[in-house]
C-alpha cells in the first residue's frame, strides 16, 4: 500500500512537473501580456516577440522560480513536497560585491546575521559569532556573476503532505486543505447518499428479480436496467435538467447548485433548510446513483441465481427447512459476497469520479475543484486532489477486504 502510494504520487508529480505551460510559464506570459498592454517598454518589442523572458528583470524571474519551487531538481521538489526534505522558507537575497566576503543582513525584528563567504560556501553567524542553527545560506549559481556573488539566506522546515501541509493554492490564495474541506463535504454528501440509496434499492430489487426469474416483473425491471446502463449519469442529469429544471417543460427543480445562496439560506427555518437541501439534491442524487444502479442490481440477481442452483440449497431444502429460511439465511448470505467486495470500488468512484455530474449541476464539489485546478495549473490543489483520490482508493480497497471478511466467514486475514 505504501509503495503503491509512493509510486502513484511520483508518477503524478513527474507528469505534472514535466508538463509544459505550467504555472511559472503561465505567470510569465501573463506578466508579458500585461506589459504589452500597458505599452511599457520594459524590453524591446523584438525581445517579446522572440519569446525571450527578458521582459522580466532577472531578480523577478528568480523570485518567481523560487515561489513555484522550480529552482530545485525534480526529485528534491518531490521530497520537499512529501515533507522529508527541508523546505526553504523566509528567503532573503544577499549580494557580495567584488572583494567583499562579509555582509550583515537584517532577517527581521532587528536581528542581524553575518554572512561570510568562505571558499565555495556561505556560512551564517549570529551576533555571538556562532554559526546560526536556524539560518542557512547558499550561493545562487544562476544569479552570480564574475564580480558579484549572489546568495540567499533562509530558514528550513519539514512540511509536506506527510505533515499535513498540502501547500497554498495559487488561485484561491488559501491553504489547500481549507479550499478542499467544504467542497469535500459536499461531494461526500452526494456520494454517500447516492451510494446508500443505490444499495437499498438494488439489493432488494436484485433479490426480487432472482426469485421471480423470468416473470413479467423481471422483464420490466430488466428494461429499466438496460436503460440505466445505456445512459451515463451526467447525460441523464442533463435530460433531467431540461425536463424539470424549468427550461422548456416543467419548472419543478432548481437548475443547479448545492443549496440556495447563503443570503436566502440563512433566512430559512430549520425545516425550510431541510426542504431546500432536498429540493436541490434530488436531481443530482438520481444522476449519481444511476451509475451503480444497473451493475449492482444485475450483480445481486446473478449471484443469487447462481447460489440458488447450488447443491447446498438442495440439501437445505432436503433437510426440510422452510423456503424463507433457505433463501434469506443460506442463499442470501453467500450472494452478497460479491456485492460486499465491490463496496470499495464504488466508494472510490462515488467520491472522486463524479465531477461530470458536478459540472452538469454546477455543484461546487470536490471533483469540480480538481478539474478547475488542472485548467488553472494550480499545482498544489491538483496534487492535493490527486493524492486524496489515491488515498481514498487505497483505503476503499482495504474497506472492501474488511467487508469481504465480515460477510464471508471463510476468509480470515491473519
Amino acid at each position, binding site marked *: 500500500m505504501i*509503495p*503503491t*502510494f509512493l*509510486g*502513484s504520487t511520483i*508518477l*503524478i508529480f513527474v*507528469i*505534472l512537473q514535466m*508538463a*509544459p*505551460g505550467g504555472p511559472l510559464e503561465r505567470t510569465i506570459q501573463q506578466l508579458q501580456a500585461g506589459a504589452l498592454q500597458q505599452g511599457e517598454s520594459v524590453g524591446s518589442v523584438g525581445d517579446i516577440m522572440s519569446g525571450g523572458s527578458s521582459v522580466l528583470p532577472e531578480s523577478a524571474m528568480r523570485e518567481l522560480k523560487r515561489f513555484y519551487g522550480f529552482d530545485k531538481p525534480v526529485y528534491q521538489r518531490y521530497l520537499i513536497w512529501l515533507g522529508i526534505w527541508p523546505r526553504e522558507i523566509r528567503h532573503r537575497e544577499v549580494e557580495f560585491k567584488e572583494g567583499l566576503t562579509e555582509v550583515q543582513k537584517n532577517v527581521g525584528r532587528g536581528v542581524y546575521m553575518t554572512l561570510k563567504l568562505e571558499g565555495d560556501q556561505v556560512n551564517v553567524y549570529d551576533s555571538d559569532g556562532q554559526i546560526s542553527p536556524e539560518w542557512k545560506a547558499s550561493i545562487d549559481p544562476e544569479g552570480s556573476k564574475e564580480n558579484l556573488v549572489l546568495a540567499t539566506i533562509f530558514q528550513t522546515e519539514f512540511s509536506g503532505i506527510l505533515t499535513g501541509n498540502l501547500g497554498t493554492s495559487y488561485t484561491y490564495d488559501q491553504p489547500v486543505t481549507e479550499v478542499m474541506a467544504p467542497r469535500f463535504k459536499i461531494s461526500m454528501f452526494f456520494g454517500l447518499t447516492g451510494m446508500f440509496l443505490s444499495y437499498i434499492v438494488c439489493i432488494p430489487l436484485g433479490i426480487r428479480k432472482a426469485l421471480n*426469474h423470468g416473470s413479467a416483473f423481471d422483464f420490466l425491471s430488466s428494461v429499466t436496467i*438496460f*436503460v440505466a*446502463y*445505456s*445512459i*451515463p449519469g*451526467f*447525460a*441523464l442529469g*442533463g*435530460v433531467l*435538467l*431540461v425536463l424539470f*429544471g424549468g*427550461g*422548456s*417543460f416543467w419548472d419543478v427543480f432548481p*437548475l443547479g447548485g448545492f443549496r440556495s445562496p447563503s443570503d436566502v439560506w440563512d433566512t430559512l427555518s430549520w425545516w425550510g433548510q431541510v426542504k431546500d437541501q432536498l429540493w436541490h439534491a434530488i436531481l443530482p442524487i438520481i444522476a449519481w446513483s444511476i451509475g451503480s444502479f444497473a451493475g449492482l442490481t444485475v450483480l445481486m440477481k*446473478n449471484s443469487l*441465481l*447462481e447460489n*440458488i*442452483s447450488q447443491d447446498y*440449497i*438442495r440439501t437445505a*431444502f432436503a433437510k426440510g427447512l422452510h*423456503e424463507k429460511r433457505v433463501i434469506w439465511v443460506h442463499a442470501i448470505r453467500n450472494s452478497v459476497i460479491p456485492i460486499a467486495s465491490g463496496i470499495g470500488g464504488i466508494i472510490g468512484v462515488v467520491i*472522486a*469520479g463524479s465531477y*461530470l455530474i458536478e*459540472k*452538469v449541476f454546477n455543484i461546487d464539489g470536490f471533483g469540480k475543484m*480538481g*478539474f478547475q485546478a*488542472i*485548467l488553472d495549473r494550480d499545482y498544489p490543489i*491538483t496534487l492535493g*486532489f*490527486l493524492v486524496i*483520490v*489515491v488515498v481514498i*482508493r*487505497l483505503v476503499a480497497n482495504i474497506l472492501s477486504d474488511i467487508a469481504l471478511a465480515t460477510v464471508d466467514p471463510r476468509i480470515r486475514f491473519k
Partner: protein
Amino acid sequence: MPEQQEISLSILKKRWLKFKTLRRGYYSFILLIILYGLSWFLPLLINNRALVVKYNDEIYFPVISGYHAGSFFGQDVPGETIYRELKATWKAEDSDNWLIMPPYPYSPYEDITVQGNKMYEAPSKTHWLGTDNTGRDVFSRLCYAFNISISFALVLSTLNYILGVLIGGSMGYLGGKFDLIFQRIIEIWSSLPMLFVIIIISSIIRPSFFLLIFIYTIVNWIGMTYLMRAEFYREKSKDYVAAALSMGQSNFKVMFKHILPNSLVPIITYFPFSIVGGISALVGLDYLGFGMPPPTPSWGQMLDVGLQNISKYWMVMAPVGAQFITLIMVVFIGEAVREAFDPKVYSRLR
C-alpha cells in the same frame, strides 16, 4: 458416416446460430452494422454540397470535387455556392441547368456565416432536430458524430485488446518476475484517477483522433490485461498446453495458436461492453472539452453547448438520445452475445 459429418457444426457456428435466435440482440446487431456502414457514406447523404450539378451542358460533382465559388455557377453570393438556393433559383427560372442535392442538404460545419442559416432554430421540417448556437444543423452533426464515436470505440477497444492479450497473456503464461513487475505497475497505474490523467495530458497537447485513442489506450489497457492474465493463467495448466509444449512448440505458438483460441469466450463477450465504455468515455471527454478538437461533431460537445442553453431542449435531448439509442443497441448485442457464448442455466428447486 459422411452425412453425420456434415451435420456436426463447429462450436462457433453453433454459437452464431444461437445468437441469431436472440432476436433483440440479433436485430440490433444488423441495424447497427447497417447504420455504421451507411455512416461512412454520410457525405453523400447529409451534406450541403450538391451531388451532381449540370450547368451549361457540363456535369460537376461538387461532393467529390469540393469547393466551387458561387460565381462559378452564376450565383451572386460571396464564397462558396449555396446549392440549396441555387436549386430553388433554377427551378423558379425553369432553366436547363439542374442539380441533385443529398437527401438531407445540411452539412455539420455549415454555420451562420452561410446565408439563410439561423441560430437556435427549433426542430422543423427543414432542420429535423433544430440548429445549435452557431446555426449548425443538429441532426447532421449527430450523424457525423455517430460515425466518429463508433470508430473511436472500435479502434480503442481493438488496441486495448491487442495490448491486453499481449501483456496480460504474457503475465499469465510466463508468470514469475515478469508477472510480478507488471502487477506492481498495474497496481500503481490503476490507483490513479484515469480521466484526470487524460485531462492533464490533453490540456498539454491538443489531441487529434488517433492521439486521443493513443492517450486513452495508455490509461485504459488494465481491465483487459487483468482479464487475459487470469484466462492465460488458467489455461496454462491444462493438458493440451503440456501436449503442445512436449511436441516442441515455441512459447509464442503455444500462446497465440493454442491458448488464445481457447480464451475467445471472455474476449468476445466483453467486446460490446468495451465499446459501450469507449463511447461513454469519448462523450465525457468531449463534454469537458478535452476530446476531439473543434469543430469536429461530437455528442459530448453538443451536450455541453446544450446545457449552456437549457431552454433549447433539442440541443440536449438530441445528443443524449442518439447516445442512448446507440448504447442500448450495443448493450442488447452484448447481452445476446453473452447468452450465446456463455449460457448460464439456472436450475431451481422451487
